[in-house]
């Protein structure tokens, strides 16, 4: 693998939640949304990030973009740590990392025209550009994402969800970033539009050499677009592998359950296959289980899983799993 564009090392994000009914000075609750996450992303690659709601996917993405402060660890961008940057350096860094959001209409200021929205990153990072130049670039970018440049003076509420997402993508790409973080960019769209947006992203990635961090809870979409996939559970990354390898040969019991939950679009095959369904709910991130956070729902949990967080094991150069018992997954052990 080439030198990574992004190298995340032991990143943790902790939120302080004010105690209800407590004194102003009483210590707030700590919520560890992301714990000890390590990932790398090479230029031009797509890393898919999957996990159920509340697993910390979005928080991890926001820590990379910098809108949520990391409490521990490093986010190295071409070797430079962006966690320890000053606010000013961080603002300048914003040019290289952009974000695409889940709810396309919520991500566009309703009082601004499409032209103003798409031009905002340009105006921020290249204040010397002339109006004509900005207008030309915005028009070209709109065309590139499949919008008529003539719609430049329209307002977001005059567009459909898919079009709004295209506007969001145009805004993200206007400064020629190297990484675009897509936080569930297609889950608010209907299926036919999802495909259009995913294909657009892939196309733009090829043309512009973008790296993508693609968050979704739809495994089939992630599999389609990603080179590598990381699986998160309750703030921890439990497995990372090449996309095909992860889908075909999942090792972590949680990944297996996740893949089993994807329905096969063929009723007979669907009814015939064995589906290990996870029992119970996601534990509260305010008081996570000791040791391995997945042990409360794990079909192969052992008594000593409660002792310490499982070490990350390297299966081969690209496949990592955080479960010491991944080999005997197929033989459920009764405790």
């Amino acid at each position: 693998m080439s030198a990574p564009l992004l190298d995340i090392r032991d990143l943790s994000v902790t939120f302080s939640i004010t105690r209800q009914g407590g004194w102003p000075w009483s210590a707030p609750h700590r919520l560890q949304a992301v714990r000890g996450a390590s990932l790398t992303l090479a230029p031009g690659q797509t890393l898919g990030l999957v996990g159920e709601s509340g697993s910390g996917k979005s928080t991890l993405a926001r820590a990379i973009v910098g809108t949520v402060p990391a409490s521990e660890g490093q986010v190295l961008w071409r070797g430079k740590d962006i966690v320890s940057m000053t606010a000013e350096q961080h603002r300048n860094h914003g040019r290289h990392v952009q974000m695409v959001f889940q709810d396309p209409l919520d991500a566009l200021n309703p009082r601004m025209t499409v032209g103003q929205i798409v031009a905002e990153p340009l105006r921020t990072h290249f204040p010397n550009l002339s109006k004509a130049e900005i207008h030309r670039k915005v028009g070209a970018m709109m065309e590139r994402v499949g919008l008529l440049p003539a719609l430049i003076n329209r307002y977001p509420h005059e567009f459909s969800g898919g079009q709004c997402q295209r506007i969001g993508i145009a805004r993200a790409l206007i400064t020629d970033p190297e990484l675009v973080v897509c936080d569930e960019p297609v889950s608010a769209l209907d299926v036919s539009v999802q495909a259009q947006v995913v294909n657009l992203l892939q196309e733009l990635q090829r043309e512009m050499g973008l790296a993508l961090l693609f968050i979704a809870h739809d495994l089939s979409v992630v599999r389609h677009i990603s080179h590598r996939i990381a699986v998160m559970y309750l703030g921890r990354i439990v497995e990372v592998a090449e996309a095909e390898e992860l889908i075909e040969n999942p090792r972590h019991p949680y990944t297996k359950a996740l893949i089993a939950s994807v329905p096969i679009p063929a009723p007979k095959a669907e009814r015939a296959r064995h589906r290990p369904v996870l029992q119970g709910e996601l534990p509260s991130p305010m008081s996570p289980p000791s040791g391995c956070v997945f042990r409360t729902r794990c079909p192969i949990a052992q008594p000593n899983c409660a002792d310490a967080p499982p070490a990350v094991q390297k299966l081969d150069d690209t496949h990592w799993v955080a479960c010491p018992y991944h080999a005997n997954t197929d033989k459920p052990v009764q405790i």
Partner: protein
Amino acid sequence: MFATKSVADDLATAPLKGRSLWADARARFFHNRAAVTGLIVLIAVACFAIMGPFIAPWNNEDIDWNVLGNVQTGGRPSLETGHWFGTDALGRDLFARTVQGTQISLLVGIVGALISVIVGTLYGAVAGYFGGRIDNVMMRVVDVLMSIPYMFVLILLLVVFGRSLFMLFVGIGLVSWLDMARIARGQTLTLKGKAYIEAARATGVRPFTIILRHIIPNLLGVVIVYATLLVPSMIIYESFISFLGLGVQEPLTSWGALINDGAAEMTNGTLWMLTWPLLFFVITLFGFFFVGDGLRDALDPKDR
């Protein structure tokens, strides 16, 4: 086939004009009859205040010596004497006096609302956007200022520093922005969670640019509605102060002062001294309330 192609060409070349939320709101506002009537009344009152001095046959300071002895009969409203609205107890032309009172009262109302819009909105938006400790300190300051009875402060200011128009503005300015700051902060807190604010932060837009470019334009709907409802309450404050005899000083006058003078003469059979300023006072307040209502319906169609 031909036609389709040319339409497509048009679409591809000529930039289309979008319909902004403001344009939508304007259309809704002009469909509201009560609001449009209110607006026309307000424009008429404003024209009255601006044009009045040029059409009044009498100056507001000159005393008509012919009337002075017998205001009850000679000072009646009449077209022949040129006292269209009659005269006041001193024989001064009431039309000219009402014009002057309208100017002052509108000025007080508009200055008060303007201070509250500018100071209150910025203060509230800054407190809400930065949040945390800054928000806490800034809003506690507002709470403390709010707990002081404003009428007391106003009266004290006017007594200590002398009665002047400037002191009146200062006093009204001091209290008018507090409510607005709270409203703006509350709205900012809901806006802060929007993804477009996060997008701007992720891009690296400066905090104050975010406040000015993203937060304030989205606050403005609520702020404008509240401001139009604030103007009449400012006029009422001023009228009350003037009614107590602490507001504007002779020879300046305002609606409150005129109503006060008229009320004092009520028993002498010179009712016009009360009715004319009162009429203007009432129609202006109604005008503002209807316009405010219309704006609220136009700007927040969901909240009706």
